[in-house]
């Protein structure tokens, strides 16, 4: 079967369960395609030989009751994988081999999936284009020299290029939804506390969440069902009743109230995005949803708030990289000089910039003016959503203010790079779930995404709305394998 890599996760699971395909056949197909796709630079670490061995073992004694039976999968290199190098896209973790497994990846292996390798990402997940990675930028399979989005850029590129049937990313300010939007794929950022953060290299702990990235909504629901578990190893993991998201998935969203926030009509938004949003509203109406105008008055303050909260938490989380216990070390005359040189040579420019911002806003004399102020505005942003959800069941917005941009186009202007996350950041600040689905193309043929934001713990509802709209949109990604010689 030569078209194995074109199959969706759900099809592959079905074919392995009915013994039409073996895990070895499927794994071999994805490994071969990944090997032919090195130009995309989607992988940081390949583990193909082990993957093929594990597939062989699975086939010798297949457990077909599992949810991901013998399915090969590559994951973002921010998840610690036992005995396999985990770099977070950074020089400072270049040689780090974890002695433990993240809960999210463990859940995936427990359901029968097989690790193929670790996917490229922005350094410590700080970036919106995958250009801050120590391991180089990633190509978007849509078009050469186009960024795949970030920080989960290796993940979005790999799913869109069919190097892996499905993957996981992490989302602190948009790092799953923005790259999904840039590559014509589906990405879900779950409610804060729904997926364990244990074993994920920490960026901003009050915002970080892991989530699935897939070719379609059904696959996304299935993987979310596997990764979303209560975990006592994460003190912010929340013990709530989780659905069997893929089984309970329905296209019946009749009478659901969907809010359209007027503040998301930002200055300078391209007409293509405005048109896409209008089309999205029509699709939602066609599905039987009721459209209601709402207001989220503090939307414009979300990005400035985020750029205080996230760097502050990052500066504290990244204090552990000191060149002593693991990772890269630069030699110095004394201990302090060793620390300073290690961090100066081990971290890239964007990470250093954010550590400095974070250190400054937390430093004596500035804490109240910046950090405390940001926490207060964060409360106002959350209140906006709480108010809106008295009237609506979900909110529909564009995922990004533009389609994917060229590599190098925004690297010299941090603020213009940050503006990419204008529609995704408020969702992280309020701890809500959000999903991006491909909804159309711009004039250049680049994908554009729509975002559906839900109430906390209401993943099923936004998955259902996405599932119903996906059917109406009938999006087809335009990828011609240009990188395969």
């Amino acid at each position, binding site marked *: 079967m030569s078209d194995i890599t074109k199959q969706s996760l759900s099809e592959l699971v079905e074919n392995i369960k009915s013994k039409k395909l073996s895990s070895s056949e499927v794994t071999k197909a994805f490994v071969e395609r990944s090997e032919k796709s090195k130009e995309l630079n989607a992988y940081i670490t390949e583990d193909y030989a082990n993957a093929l061995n594990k597939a062989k073992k699975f086939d010798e004694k297949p457990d077909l009751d599992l949810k991901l039976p013998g399915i090969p999968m590559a994951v973002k290199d921010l998840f610690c994988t036992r005995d396999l190098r985990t770099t977070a896209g950074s020089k400072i973790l270049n040689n780090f081999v974890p002695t433990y497994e993240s809960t999210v990846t463990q859940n995936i292996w427990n359901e029968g999936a097989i690790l193929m390798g670790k996917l490229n990402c922005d350094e410590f997940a700080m970036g919106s284009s995958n250009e801050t990675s120590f391991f180089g930028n990633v190509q978007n399979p849509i078009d050469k020299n186009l960024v795949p989005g970030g920080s989960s850029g290796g993940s979005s590129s790999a799913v869109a290029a069919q190097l892996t049937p499905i993957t996981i990313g992490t989302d602190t300010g948009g790092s799953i939804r923005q790259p999904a939007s840039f590559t014509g794929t589906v990405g879900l950022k779950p409610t804060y506390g729904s997926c364990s953060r244990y074993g994920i290299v920490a960026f901003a702990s009050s915002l970080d969440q892991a989530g699935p990235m897939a070719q379609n909504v059904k696959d996304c629901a299935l993987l979310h069902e596997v990764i979303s578990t209560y975990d006592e190893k994460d003190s912010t993991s929340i013990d709530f009743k989780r659905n069997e998201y893929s089984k309970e998935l329905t296209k019946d969203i009749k009478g659901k109230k969907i809010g359209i926030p007027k503040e998301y009509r930002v200055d300078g938004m391209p007409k293509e995005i405005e048109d896409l949003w209008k089309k999205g509203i029509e699709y939602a109406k066609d599905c039987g949803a009721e459209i209601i105008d709402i207001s989220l008055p503090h939307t414009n303050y979300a990005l400035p708030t985020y750029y205080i909260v996230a760097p502050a938490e990052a500066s504290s989380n990244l204090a552990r990289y000191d060149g002593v216990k693991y990772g890269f070390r630069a030699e110095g005359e004394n201990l302090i000089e060793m620390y300073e040189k290690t961090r100066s040579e081990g971290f890239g420019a964007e990470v250093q910039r954010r550590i400095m911002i974070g250190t*400054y806003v937390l430093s004596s004399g500035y804490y109240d003016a910046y950090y405390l102020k940001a926490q207060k505005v964060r409360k*106002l942003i959350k209140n906006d959503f709480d108010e809106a959800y008295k009237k609506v069941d979900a909110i529909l917005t564009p995922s990004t203010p533009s389609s994917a941009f060229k590599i190098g186009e925004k690297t010299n202007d941090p603020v213009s790079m940050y503006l990419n996350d204008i529609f995704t950041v408020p969702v992280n600040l309020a701890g809500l779930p959000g999903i991006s689905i491909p909804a159309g193309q711009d004039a250049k043929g680049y994908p554009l995404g729509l975002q559906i934001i839900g109430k906390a713990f209401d993943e099923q509802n936004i998955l259902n709305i996405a599932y119903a709209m996906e059917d109406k949109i009938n999006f087809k990604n335009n990828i011609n394998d240009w990188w395969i010689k």
Partner: protein
Amino acid sequence: MSIDLKTIKHISKLSRISVDEKKAEKLAGDLNSIFDFIEKLNELKTDNVEPLTSVAETTLKLRSDEVKSKNLRDQVIKNSPKENEDYFVVPKVIE
């Protein structure tokens, strides 16, 4: 507000990241444009707003204090940049 080179040097000390003149100048420029953008928050009156410290409205759970992980000393030490059988090695601290 403006962040000068002296402030950059102070933050770099606190951050334990060494910066030379050239890098300090670049950082000052970047940080100033980012803080210009952040200053927007001052438009809002927040005197009576409670700060949001966590979106997860739960109280921390207690668990029994048991050792669950195995002894991984050798593997943990192996990740150290300067290898030694029993210890992490750093430059001399006490003269």
